């Protein structure tokens, strides 16, 4: 079965399975565990104009069917990314999505401008939804005006496809989704992590060095599917869904809720090659549920009233 996904501005994925930003480094880390050429794409770790230190450890904490993280977007900055990582990625045959972050509108724009010149970057994912930094990050994703500004600024400096990554910590994701589409976003990815907190009972303190953290993993899948469903029902651009994907069935759930592709994060820590297994199983799972191709599944559950048997 052909799993190719054709997205706006010529972005083509071999299949709908993309490594989620922040869980897959810049590519080389997992290269000896996963045949990167088989992936639909890789969204690299968030990149800022200058190096960011990130948050104090501990940075991860296990929760029921979930994971709290407070990495705080540690990254070496766009220059180091270009020098150290793009050469490696140039040898890889998969879509490379640059996840970009900033404290200000200008910083987002600066990264986009720098990377626009890099042929190896196939698309941008504008992260306006990271709950783990104080300034910028999630704040931009919570205000339709600010979200508009950031996306507009990025749009002005690149003709590459622009994906905007949405926060789940919102009352009305549809409002932000509309604002970023108005600003020129070609696609929306959702969701980033939910804000959570755990207590280290022995230490009598919040378990993470950063205090709160971002909740990911299977625990958040119902919230993610709801937001994808809501966004897909409200805006016309393609949606890339994520949050707790573990299996090809989970992928199908996101597709039916309106996603054109999915990203896979936390499960990779347990099973480095799970994305490959999902890609292998997806055709059978689609067939099992009566779909003869991928596109048929996209949005298949949209607009259906609740089920009454």
């Amino acid at each position, binding site marked *: 079965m052909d799993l190719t996904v054709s997205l706006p501005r010529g972005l083509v994925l071999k299949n709908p399975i993309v490594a989620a930003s*922040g*869980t*897959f*480094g810049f590519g080389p*880390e*997992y290269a*000896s*565990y996963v*045949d990167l050429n088989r992936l639909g794409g890789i969204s690299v*770790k968030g990149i800022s104009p200058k190096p960011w*230190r*990130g948050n*104090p*450890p*501990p*940075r*991860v*904490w*296990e*929760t029921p*069917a*979930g*994971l709290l*993280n407070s*990495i705080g977007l*540690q990254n070496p900055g766009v220059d180091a990314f270009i020098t150290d990582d793009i050469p490696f990625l140039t040898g890889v045959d998969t879509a490379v999505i640059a996840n970009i972050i900033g404290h200000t509108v200008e910083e987002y724009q600066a990264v986009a401008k720098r990377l626009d010149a890099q042929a190896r970057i196939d698309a941008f994912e504008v992260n306006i939804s990271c709950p783990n930094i104080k300034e910028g990050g999630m704040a931009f994703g919570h205000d339709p005006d600010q979200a508009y500004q950031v996306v507009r600024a990025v749009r002005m400096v690149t003709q590459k496809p622009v994906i905007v990554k949405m926060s789940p910590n919102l009352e009305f994701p549809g409002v932000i989704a509309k604002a970023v589409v108005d600003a020129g976003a070609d696609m929306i990815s959702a969701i980033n992590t939910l804000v959570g907190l755990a207590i280290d009972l022995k230490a009598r303190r919040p378990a993470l060095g950063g205090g709160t953290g971002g909740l990911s*993993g299977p625990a958040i899948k119902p919230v993610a599917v709801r937001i994808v469903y809501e966004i897909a029902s409200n805006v016309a651009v393609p949606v890339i869904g994520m949050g707790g994907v573990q299996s090809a069935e989970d992928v199908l759930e996101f597709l039916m809720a309106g996603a054109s592709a999915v990203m896979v994060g*936390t499960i*990779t*820590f*347990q*099973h*480095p*090659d799970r994305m490959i297994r999902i890609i292998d199983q997806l055709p059978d799972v689609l067939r099992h549920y009566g779909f003869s191709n991928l596109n048929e599944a996209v949005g298949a559950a949209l607009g259906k009233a609740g089920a009454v048997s």
Partner: protein
Amino acid sequence: MNSAFEVPIVKRLEPASGHVELLVDSPVLAQGKPGQFCHILTPGTLRRPVSFSRLEPSTGLAGLLIQVVGSGTRWLSDRQVGDTLDVLGPLGRGFAPPRLDRPWLLVGGGTGIPPIYAALQAWRDQVSEPVAVVLGAKTRDALIMVKDVRQLGFEAELTTDDGSQGRIGTVMAPVQEWLAAHPRSQVWACGPTPMLRALHGATQGLSGPVQLALEQRMGCGIGACLACVVPAQPESPDGPAYRRVCTDGPVFEREELAF
């Protein structure tokens, strides 16, 4: 291509209450270096990092000595001979092997003892200078692998916080004495953070290499997620840089760290 793989448990020991040692049959793991670890699948959302307690490349056996502290280690301690473990490994930077011209000081605290044993096991034929092995724990129960160390032919100076075995107090008293007597020592240490912090202080200005094996909560275990960082040099005005225990460590040179 690497991948997670299954290794069979061929022996299960209970070296002390609340501790289990699993020997697995895996030539790949047995090629590991002392100080390296493997990342083991458990029912939780994250794998659990465990250092090698033994490495026997000739027989293809590797050991994993686990102290039960929570759900994952409890699950591991319940595994039986015949069960398999799903592991990533060997991972990380291990201890650098000894230089032949310097005295040795090896310091293990609690579950930091197994990597020290693995180092002694690997290097036992390379001894040419005086060797001190200092092992400490809270109580007698947690003072593991002492017999194994002695069976390799090394003496071990023991300490417990409560004096239930060996000298009362931490490892630092015998360590200080040894360093005073052998200032040219090279040092390897693994144990709880406070012990490593104390050693970091006590070894300032020492001429020999000092290698400290750290622990940190981990995500991927292979360098991708930046979860497992510890404060490191160079310190910037904003504070220390952060480096990864899983790939830049677990073993760091003293100079690399910012305690």
